[in-house]
């Protein structure tokens, strides 16, 4: 963006927000402050070294026209690698089965998620990226279709429900 356009756009946004001159100055000082330590937590497909925090409920947008919820539950002996899942539309389960997940490095360079629905063909996704909290809880996963070559482009997401 050209400098003059950036300046104009910033002025217009600040006018719209109604921020005071003091608040603008404070923002400017904070942006320059070395104390600014936002929690990053994002891991790319090759950086996901553990998926023990995967269990839980997520919004699941594999079908863009029908966003559903998915619940992952690890089996007791395979926490971090295998368990069962259920995809629901409201209270109605539309798909159930087993899943396996692989962090990067354990025989694969990228993190992978395998869904095997009961009586259906397995679907494989690359975990293209994930926000993972300090306690290992996965909050957002970006999922890409598996292919053996080419770029990893997220197709949909799983977002942890509160």
């Amino acid at each position, binding site marked *: 963006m050209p400098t003059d356009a950036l300046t104009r756009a910033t002025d217009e946004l600040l006018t719209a927000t109604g921020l005071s001159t003091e608040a603008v100055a404070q923002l400017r000082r904070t*942006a320059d402050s070395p104390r*600014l330590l936002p929690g990053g937590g994002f891991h790319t497909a090759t950086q996901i070294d553990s998926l023990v925090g995967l269990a839980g409920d997520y919004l699941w947008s594999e079908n863009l026209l029908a966003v559903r919820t998915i619940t992952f539950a690890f089996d007791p002996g395979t926490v971090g690698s295998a368990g069962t899942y259920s995809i629901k539309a409201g209270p109605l389960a539309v798909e159930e089965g087993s899943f396996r997940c692989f962090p990067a490095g354990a025989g694969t360079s990228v993190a992978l998620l395998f869904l095997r629905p009961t009586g259906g063909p397995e679907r494989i996704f690359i975990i293209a990226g994930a926000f993972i909290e300090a306690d290992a809880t996965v909050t957002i996963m970006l999922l890409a279709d598996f292919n053996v070559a080419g770029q990893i482009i997220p197709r949909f997401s799983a977002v942890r429900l509160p």
Partner: protein
Amino acid sequence: MSIDVTTQDLLHAAELPPETGDALRALFDATAPLIASGYHGPLDIPTLEGLPGSYLWFENPLVVRVIRFTFDSDKVGFQGRYTLSSGFTVEQGTFRCVPNNPAIGFAFLGLTPDGGATRAWPISGMVTDPLQRIAVLQLGEFVGSQLVTRFAAVRLV
């Protein structure tokens, strides 16, 4: 030394006509402002041109909605229209956004509903994909001198 020699060797081997080389150079220069894919922290948001599209919108964590951003054709990167829906349209208006900038440093996104008051958030981070699209936009608030993420917008389409 070696890079220049290798480039010349490569171009010679490729037998590209000079005008093709010039066109490639122009294409490279035109795409230079684009950003690398991956995570970008709050002080690493040089452009928001990858914003257009639909996102899951978690402003109210108990009522997840879908927001669609479309830049005005003459204001790509900083202003356009948005529609917030939950099966039906619940809000629409004008959005403004700025990347990191000299005035306040932080990138911001503001929504001004038609006939309503502006809500604005500093952008605490984003994830971009290899197509330069924003995959996740983290919207924050200041707690003391800390910028913390309050909610995320996660791309649908």
